[in-house]
Each structure stands twice: as C-alpha cells, then as structure tokens.
C-alpha cells in the first residue's frame, strides 16, 4: 500500500466494558460502576442533541424526562420527519414470543455472525439485552404494532435468521416507532425541558479545552449563524448513504454533522462499510433523484429469479418455470430467499453481470409473488404487503399482483460512522454519537430490522445511562461567544458559506453530487478493487478541485437558500468519499458489505482475512496535504467463534 495514502498511529482500545465479568453481566455492571448525577444537578446541565430520528428523538425525550436541560436540533420543519420515518419492515427483539428457540444469546449470535465478525461483542450483547425493553416501551406509548386475533403481538422473519423475532406495523414500522418517540419528545417540549430548534443545521462542533461544548448552526429559514453551548453534545444525525447521490435515504440526509465533528478530532470508523440493499426499485433515468426500497420483508413470500438463458427478453409471465433460475434458493438451500443483504445483493449483481438481468439495461431481477398469491390468496398478500405493492405501482406504473416486481440493489445504510466506545462516547470527550451516525453494532453488514433496534436502544436506554458518568464531572465552566475557540468556529462557518456563494462557476451542487455518486457506485460500491479504488481517489481529488473553482450557487446566505444547503453537504460528501475509498483500499479482505474482488472464496463468497484485518479501522483527520492516520481497535471474539459465514 502506498505510504502517501495514510499513516498508522497508536492503536485504540475500548476500555469501558467491564470485561472482568461474563458478557451477560457487563451492561448491568457498567451501569452499576458508572457515576450518577443527582436530580438537582441535572437541572444545571445542558445537553445538545442533534437529530430527532429514532436515536435522537428517543434520547432527547428521555434526557428531558430525566431532568436535564435539552436543546434539540433538526433540519426539517418537524421532528416527526426524520428519515427513520421511512423504515418499513420491522424491529428485532429477543422476546421469543414464537417459542421458536430465540433468546438474547441467539440474537447476539446472529448479529455478530451477520456482521461478518467485524463488530464488538460487548456492544452487540447489550443491544440484544435491551431489545426486549424497547418493545415494552413502544407498546406503552401506543405504537400500533401488528397483532394476532388473540390480541398479542405478531412477528415475522427477516434475512440472516431462522427465527421469527421481527415486530412490525404493516410496512410502516419506522413511522410508527418514530411517532412514539416524537410524541414523547413533544411532551417534553411542552413541559419546557427540551428547547426546539427546527430547520436548524449543525455546521460545526465547538471544542473547548478538549471537551465538546457546543455547536455552530445555521437557521435554514433566516440564514442566521448561531452558537449553542452545553455540557455535552449528542450527535444523532443519521447515515451518510447519500455520498452515493442515489440511495434510499431522504434527500436531506447528510454527513455534515459527523464530518465536521470528525474534522474537530472525532475518529471516523470503518467508513467503507456500506450496505447495499438487494430489493429496491431499479433506476429509470438521468433525472432520477432517489431510490425507493421495497422492504426486505417481501423476501418472506417473494421468490427471486432471473431467466436461465442470457438475453431472454420475453415478458416474465411467458417464461416457463423450468427456464427460470431461482438462484438464491439454488445457491443457499437452507436460507433461500432470506440470506443476508450483502449476499443477496452481490448475487443479483452477479446474475446481471452474466447478462441475465431483466428490465432496462439488464439491471434488475424479478421478485415474484405468484406462488404466494396462489398459496395464501390475494387478500392475504394484500393485507401483508398492500402499501408496498401500491408504492411500487405508483412509481413504476406496473401492477405487481400481475407481473413480478423488478428489483435491483441500492445503497441503503452505512455501518461505518464516528467511532464510539462502549459508553457511545467519541474520541472527543463530551461528544456522544448514537444511531446510524456511529459505527457501533453492525460490523461489516447490518441485519434487517436491527437499525431501528439500535437507534432506540441507544436513545432510550444506553446513552441516558452512560452519559451521566461523564456529566458527573460537570457542570463545566461557562463559555460564551467571545471565547477564542467559539470565535474561530463561527468564522470558519461564515467563511465557508461565503466561499460557496462567491465561486460563481458553471456547475450546480446537484451536478457535482451526481458525478461523485456515480463514481462511488462504480468504484466503491458492490465490488471494489485495488485499481478501481486508486482511480476513484484520484478522480475525487479532481472533483473536489473543480467543485471549489466551478461551483454555482445563487442567492445569499441571509435567507432560505436550498441550493446553498445542498452545496455545503456536497462539499462534505466529497471529502468523506475520499476517506471511504482509502479505507476500502487499505482493507485488503472482503467482509460483509465490503467485497474486494481480490479476496473471495472459490464459490465467490466474501473471504475474510482474520489474521490481518480483525480490527475496527478508526481514522483520524489531518489537515490538508497530510494523509489521514489509521488507528486500529483490535476485535476479539470470546463468545462467538470466528468462522466463515455460511448460509448454504
């Protein structure tokens, strides 16, 4: 590996988990050993929470209830619109209501294995433990989960597991869970414990004497740049999948909050771990602005296939059974259509690369419900998936009850994120990171229905408990606008904003974003190679240079200026894109969603190299012209034995 792309620094360790007790006791032990803040002192402490998705919304509400003074920030008009609202399929919990052999240990095991042995055992075990409390909490809030005729909760199966542990609310689980958290948050806003800052975007982190003490933010309506101070800052700004331009994320989803915090000293872990979801509606044209997911739950009943022959362009229904290749069922008899996402996506790519893809450009595979409709009847299929079928029909103009759906993989989730320890604290003391914004629990591949679980585990239960250990040393000295660190941060934001507006070149932010996205998809997407990644890095540097010399953004910054918002986000995506490629290049193994063509088994499965790469890659930002510094956190597997994943 060429030296100039990165250098290696000191390894890091997560020392917060009490490894002297067995894994099942570590979380309660940590809570017991952690320090507490008494209720009177909580009222003297301020906590900033950036984001109101499942992670930020649940954290802000819970911290408010606990008596802290909370300041909550989000970029949409209402906290109810955080992108968690779009999650469709469900949330996992080890309730074992099906009596099918599920347990905390099995959920723990499935998640570590599903993550292809690149996550931390302690974190994952805690997640599995807390999962059961989440369901209780949500039901009490009035989340209308699907129920059976006896009035008890229903479950379904998701990829990568053989038990039925996914709780759901038709195809709108994220929406219903988010509204639960949102309503709890609004209750705290009404009670005066949470201050609301709608349409306000975090643009920098304020670090004073080595501690995170506040943020610089821009009011997206008035354009005003303001400062906000606190004793601790919690970032819950979601994932960065939009670095690929086209993804299943919301248009406004961004990396800005975490990227700017990274530039202030927070390590960025495993940036190249991206989840490409196998079942999305294929791209149609150049104007395409986003991709729409068709929930993984569809793979419970839908069968994935392509024609056996290349270039067979007969309509799906004219292709006889024996000329179809149900390739997932063929390759993975025991998991069939329910293999984990990374595997399903890569196999879809493989059959398309063989020329057996269907639809425009041969970039699609069928997801067929004919058999399910025959077996269960159309009304039953409608009841289960009606809204997804409607959405598909709305977008494609085709009727999935009659012709099979066409699906193709799309960027969906980012397992990478800011590095955090067992307490969810970043490398900047006082800055905590929760939800998709951190890197913590999913290793190199996230199992379906586990992000909602993680977001709510972090926000309702883990962070509110661990943050008190840090705050027990507070409240910290008061700071104000005149502090040199604050002045410097505000000036930085003003200068960057001014610079974006003054280039006055010939290309819009969207045009740069598209170009970056296409490049990332082609060279740092489903399959990565040494050569491709090096090319990508060179090209990204050129894009970056052109961005800062040929960008066109109209208007000014003292008003509602959506082009300016977009430009700032694209600037950060470009920098992040480069780091993702460096990370992908340095990891000369395949694991989970990170597939290096050079490292595969004879059957074409991801081949890990545990000898050399069983670590978290945490990157330290360095000023312009200096390569980023890699810090390794070694991963050890005490309870789940390292093994080649098999879903055969």
């Amino acid at each position, binding site marked *: 590996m060429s030296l100039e792309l990165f250098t290696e620094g000191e390894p890091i360790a997560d020392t917060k988990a009490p490894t002297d007790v067995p894994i099942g006791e570590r979380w309660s032990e940590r809570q017991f050993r952690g320090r507490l803040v008494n209720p009177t002192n909580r009222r003297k402490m301020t906590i900033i929470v950036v984001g109101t998705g499942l992670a930020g919304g649940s954290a802000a509400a819970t911290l408010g209830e606990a008596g802290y003074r909370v300041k909550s920030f989000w970029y949409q008009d209402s906290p109810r619109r955080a992108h968690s609202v*779009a999650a469709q399929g469900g949330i996992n919990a080890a309730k074992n209501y099906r009596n099918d052999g599920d347990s905390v240990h099995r959920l723990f095991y499935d998640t570590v294995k599903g993550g292809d042995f690149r996550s931390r055992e302690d974190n994952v075990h805690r997640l599995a433990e807390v999962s059961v409390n989440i369901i209780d909490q949500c039901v009490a809030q009035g989340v209308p989960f699907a129920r059976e005729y006896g009035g008890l*909760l229903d479950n379904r199966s998701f990829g990568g597991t053989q038990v039925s542990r996914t709780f759901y609310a038709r195809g709108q689980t994220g929406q*219903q869970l988010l509204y639960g958290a949102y309503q709890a948050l609004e209750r705290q806003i009404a009670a005066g414990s949470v201050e609301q800052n709608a349409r306000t975007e975090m643009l920098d982190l304020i670090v004073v004497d080595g501690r995170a003490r506040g943020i610089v933010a821009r009011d997206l309506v008035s354009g005003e740049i303001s400062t906000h101070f606190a004793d601790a800052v919690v970032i819950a700004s979601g994932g960065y999948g939009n670095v690929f331009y086209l993804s299943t994320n*919301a*248009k406004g989803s961004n990396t800005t909050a975490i990227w700017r915090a990274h530039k202030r000293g927070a390590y960025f872990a495993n940036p190249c771990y991206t989840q490409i979801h196998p079942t999305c509606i294929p791209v149609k044209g150049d*104007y395409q602005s*986003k991709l729409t997911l068709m929930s993984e739950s569809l793979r419970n009943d839908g069968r994935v296939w392509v024609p056996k022959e290349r270039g067979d362009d007969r309509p799906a229904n004219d292709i006889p059974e024996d000329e179809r290749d149900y390739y997932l069922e063929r390759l993975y008899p025991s998991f069939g259509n329910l293999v984990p996402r990374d595997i399903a996506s890569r196999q879809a790519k493989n059959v398309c690369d063989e020329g057996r893809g269907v639809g425009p450009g041969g970039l699609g595979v069928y997801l067929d419900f004919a058999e399910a409709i025959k077996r269960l009847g159309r009304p039953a299929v409608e009841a289960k998936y009606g809204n997804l079928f409607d959405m598909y029909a709305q977008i494609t103009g085709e009727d999935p009850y009659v012709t099979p759906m066409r699906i193709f993989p799309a960027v969906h989730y980012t397992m990478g994120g800011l590095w955090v320890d067992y307490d969810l604290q970043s490398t900047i003391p006082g800055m905590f990171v929760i939800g998709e914004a951190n890197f913590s629990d999913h290793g190199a591949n996230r199992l379906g229905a586990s992000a909602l679980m993680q977001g709510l585990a972090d926000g309702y239960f883990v962070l509110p408990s661990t943050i008190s250990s840090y705050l027990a040393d507070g409240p910290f000295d008061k700071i104000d606008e005149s502090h040199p660190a604050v002045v410097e941060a505000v000036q930085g934001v003003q200068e960057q904003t001014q610079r974006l507006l003054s280039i006055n070149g010939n290309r819009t932010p969207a045009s740069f974003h598209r170009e970056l996205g296409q490049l990332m998809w082609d060279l740092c997407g489903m399959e990565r190679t040494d050569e491709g990644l090096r090319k990508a890095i060179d090209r990204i540097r050129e894009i970056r240079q052109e961005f800062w010399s040929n960008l066109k953004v*109209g208007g000014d910054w003292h008003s*509602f200026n*959506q082009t300016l918002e977009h430009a700032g986000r694209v600037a950060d995506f470009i920098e992040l894109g480069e780091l993702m490629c460096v990370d992908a290049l340095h990891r000369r193994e395949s694991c989970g969603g990170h597939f290096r063509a050079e490292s595969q088994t004879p059957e074409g499965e991801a081949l890990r190299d545990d000898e050399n790469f069983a670590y978290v890659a945490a990157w330290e930002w360095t000023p312009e012209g200096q390569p980023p510094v890699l810090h390794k956190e070694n991963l050890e597997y005490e309870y789940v034995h390292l093994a080649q994943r098999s879903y055969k």
Partner: protein
Amino acid sequence: MTATRHDAPMTSSVGNPGAEKRGMNLTLRIWRQQGPTVKGKMVTYKITDISPDMSFLEMLDVLNEQLIMQGDDPVAFDHDCREGICGMCGVMINGQAHGPQQTTTCQLHMRSFKDGDSIDIEPWRATAFPIIKDLAVDRRAFDRIIQSGGYISVPTGTAPEAHATPVPKADSDAAFDAATCIGCGACVAACPNASSMLFTAAKVTHLGLLPQGQPERNDRVVNMVAQQDREGFGGCTNIGECSASCPKGISMETISRLNHDLLGALRAGARPKS
C-alpha cells in the same frame, strides 16, 4: 457488462407500453414569494422534454437546475423522503392539494399529465401555515397541537411487559389506520375553512382506541381541540374535502369519533389547560 446505473434508457419499456411516450412540453405557473411579508405572484415557466416516468418533484428539480444555471432564483419547495412517508412535501397542483391523485406530491408522477398541459403550482394556503418562501410553508402549528396532548405519558423505563395487555386486533388495526397520518397539511389546504380537524382527529382516534391511551383520553381531546383553535385553524363543518385529499386516506369517521370523545370529555368535566 458491469452493473452501472445510468446507462438505462429514460423511459421504461418493459411491460409498460403506455409509458413509451416521452418528452412532454409543459407550461408551469408557479407562486413566487420571496418571504413571509413580501407580496407574491404567479410566474410562468416553459419546460420541455419531461419524461412521464419522472416524479413531480423531479420535474421541479429539472426546472430548478435550469433556473440556477440562468442565474435565477430556484423555486423553494419542501421535500425530504420522496417516498410518501415523511409528510414534508405538499403543494397545490391545479387547485388540488397534492394534485390529481390521492397521494403525496412526491409520489405523483408526470404520467398523470399530458403533453401541452398547463400546471398551476401554489403553496398550502392557511393563516396557521405562514409562507416561508415560494411553495414552502411553516407547519409548526401541527407540532404544537401534538404538544398539547397528542401522546401517552410514559417515561422511558416505566413500561410494563408488552404482552401484559392484549389489544383486540380490530382496535389495533383501526388505531394503526389513524396513526398513518403523516402531518402533511393537505387536509388543511383542501378545506374551505382551513380546518385542521382531520389531523387532530387522526391522533385522537389512534390513541383513544388503545387501552394505553385511556387514562388521558378526556384531557387529550379537550386540549388538542383548544390548541387548534388557538393556532387559528378554522372550524370543521363536515365538508369532507380533507379526507378526499388526504394521501393516507384518513377517514371522516375519525372526526365523528373526536366529536363523540369531546362531548363525553366535556360532560365528564374535562377542561382545556389555559
């Protein structure tokens, strides 16, 4: 071949011969207003070569890219998820909230229009939703209605085991139907009185149908109704335009239920907090 996305043709031709036509030319008349206190007006734009497979917002993206390149101010409009679930998008299209189909603006596709059409695009109009810029409005009044009682008070960590209280499937399903409201505001925009009754009734119904929602049921309904009056939304006279425009099909029955609950609550002596 490797999997590259953008080599797909502009229109899909598989199994959908109706979508073959391409390149519509349209006349857009769009409400332009610099800010809340400035006067606005309709401005006409011509746009060409619009694919029927584009979403309505993608069509506006195309227009905005052109406006930026010409050095003009792009049209401000709200959107985020672009899959019909966040409730952020929403404009009046030819006088109809979210346009000619009962869906969100982001899920409306250009195949609902034809070559040569003229399309009027305006913001939601309601006193309680002040205009921010062009097509973007301020809907925070909805959040304040929720703040006044649209929740169940259950601090984190205090919940009983989820299976402790079974909920009849019918109630749970009906609660879910009401809970699907996305807070977009189309009901208010469609209502001649600019009433928020459907939005409020959806929440009152969702929580009121569940056993967990019973303890606060009376206070919830009186406070939420009082808050919508304070916000300046109009009164409900049962016209039904709200439900007809609602992308999530929230039914008028929720309003009957709210009225029923309100009466019961007032009889029981519940009064709004001042």
